[in-house]
């Protein structure tokens, strides 16, 4: 049955728009691409002759490198544009920039943007495929896909697992994409943090809410620890970093007390060591943070490959 699923979308904007079958198709495709990165010659000709523009209008290191490596390992030609050296600062809109890039016959645009919905507006304006590399607080589909890939690889399945996402859910695109992806594949998702960091009516996305870390850890098979942006404290969403660490920081102590022995710990990075997670835990046995990064390249290769299939299918 799985083989019958075909990629039919021009863009990858979010996991909300994808079916369980489409998500699984990306994960399965990523599995074969993961092997490419382990060879000594890390390149396949899948996207030879294609041009991919990486339009990163918000600072990013690992996601950008991951996307560029993915494109290069598929033999695509890549160009990179970042916020600071693009014409965005000269008053040109994102759409204008993208349309100009497209006019130079680019096949795919990878967009990272600080505002939610930017890739959606772009996707309507250009014929090129648009791959969302994170938009505002909205979605970060490839991050969630690499999280799903990592969980599936480690746990052998997604369905039936209890996954807890901890931290600033309200301002997290990683959380939203994870919730969509995990729920579609049958996991039970809990979000955990103080009420100021939990967005309203999130329970309608099918998640449980817990304001208490111990409770949220108890039955969890997987936890995904989100980065706490220090500016949130300045906005009054929690009183002090110190208190946040006391109540929601992941320490070996609290894991010993409440967590399952085979708990898997994910973090989308970059890690604030000693804040949302201690050094000991981040580098510990249960942590798969670096494997997530490795899998990110494979998942992004898969996404780019499938999107390029849509284009060739059309032509």
């Amino acid at each position, binding site marked *: 049955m799985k083989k019958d699923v075909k990629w039919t979308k021009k863009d990858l904007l979010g996991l*909300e728009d994808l079916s369980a079958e489409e998500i699984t198709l990306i994960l399965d495709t990523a599995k074969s691409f993961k092997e490419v990165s382990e060879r000594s010659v890390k390149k396949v000709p899948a996207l030879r002759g294609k041009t991919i523009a990486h339009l990163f209008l918000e600072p990013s290191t690992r996601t950008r490198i991951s996307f560029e490596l993915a494109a290069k390992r598929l033999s695509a030609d890549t160009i990179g544009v970042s916020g600071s050296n693009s014409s965005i600062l000269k008053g040109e*809109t*994102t*759409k204008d920039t993208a349309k100009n890039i497209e006019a130079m016959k680019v096949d795919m645009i990878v967009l990272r*943007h600080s*505002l*939610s*919905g*930017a890739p*959606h*507006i772009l996707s309507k304006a250009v014929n090129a495929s648009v791959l969302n590399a994170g*938009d*505002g*607080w*909205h*979605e970060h589909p490839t991050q969630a896909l690499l999280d799903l890939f990592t969980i599936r690889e480690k746990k052998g399945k997604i369905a039936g697992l209890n996954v807890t996402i901890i931290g600033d859910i309200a301002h997290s*695109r990683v959380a*939203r994409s994870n919730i969509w992806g995990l729920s579609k594949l049958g996991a039970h998702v809990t979000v955990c943090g103080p009420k100021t960091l939990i*967005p*309203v*009516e*999130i329970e*309608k*996305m099918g998640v449980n809410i817990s304001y208490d870390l111990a409770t949220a850890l108890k039955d969890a098979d997987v936890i995904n620890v989100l980065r706490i942006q220090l500016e949130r404290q300045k906005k009054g969403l929690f009183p002090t970093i110190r208190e946040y660490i006391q109540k929601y920081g992941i320490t070996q102590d609290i894991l010993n007390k409440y967590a399952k022995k085979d708990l898997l710990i994910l973090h989308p990075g970059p890690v604030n060591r000693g804040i949302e997670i201690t050094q000991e835990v981040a580098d510990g046995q249960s942590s798969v943070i670096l494997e997530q990064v490795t899998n990110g390249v494979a998942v992004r290769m898969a996404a780019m490959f499938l999107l390029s299939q849509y284009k060739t299918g059309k032509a």
Partner: protein
Amino acid sequence: MNILIKNGHIIDPANKRDGVADLLITNGKIAKIGNGIKEKTDIIIDAKGKLVLPGLIDLHVHLREPGREDEETILSGSRAAAKGGFTSIACMPNTTPACDSQATAKLILEQAKKNNLVNIYPIGAITKKREGKELSEIAELKDSGCVALSDDGDAVMDAALMRKALEYASSFGLPIIDHCEDKSLTEGASMNEGFMSTTLGLKGMPNEAESIIIERDIALAALAGARLHVAHVSTKEGVEIIRAAKKKGISVTGEVTPHHISLTDACCKTYDTNTKVNPPLRTQEDIEELKNGLKDGTIDIIATDHAPHLDSEKDMEFDSAPFGMIGLETALAAVALSLVETKLLKWSDIAVKMALNPAKIIGIDRGTLGEGKQADITIIDPLKSWTYLEKDIVSKSKNSPFLNWQFRSAVTHTIVGGRVLLSDGVLQC
């Protein structure tokens, strides 16, 4: 020029008229209403099967002149109003400069006079530059033709200043129209707060940002013994608070827009910035209560909050785009679709909410079809289907969430002071 409107269904709640008759206009005034009027006139309008209402009055329009004539002018806004069946419009003071002085009010009225189309009534700013710090010269604004006061776009956040504004304005008989929004609860927000804002990753405005200020303003209006008009009520809480205040006999009136009773925040799903408006599109639950409020009289008027913005401003990320949508040309049809065709209100109720009550709130002698009154008349075909296309928009800006909607009622004639500005759906100006 004399005009005879034949066989129309005349709806004039002020004079309890609701039936087929002829209406004669001479010298810009309504001369006679009756059956079988046989006067010789320059123009005869066959209104068989159509509704003849007092000219519609919109108390909430942004004309953008002076300052943003690229978005709209008094002329283009007047033409859009005539197209939509409005014979009088009140324009909000958030222009550049703000209408906080005699000079700006007079400029607007002079432009309006020069155009000589629909009646224009300026609304003056409550505070200088709409900054919420010092009262404008309110008495002089009244003397120069302003019919109400508002800092629309912003609430007067300082409660003591709002109290003084209510007290001072009421000394000169001017109502205060407040845009009720507690800005501390809406900072950085671009849509309604709820499930949609959560999934879209946009910051939302809770209903309470509106209802808290409505509650405060009503308390202050009661304290000041002043008249308060609450602009664009969008929340069920807002309706409930106004209903309770009216029961207590407090002098408050309420307004809703056609878009707040037609569209929910689900329309923001595609990040279409034409759905970005302040107050934001809310939920079905809110719509139901707004409709209840219209039905039971809690909400007195329907006004458009016509807010023109250029494509180049709206064609942005959702957070970056300005708030607002145009509404003059779709108001009547949208209202018919959600209120009349659903049998919630009758056409006579629409005449009350869109002509009679607005006239009362700003104290102008319009909104009725009494003999001897100014001949401001709107004729409606209640069975005419049409599609709202961008190319047909008269307003300078095209930012409407109703683009390509199909409507089933249409304005066919707009007559202002006996001058036909719209005839069979075609602008004559």
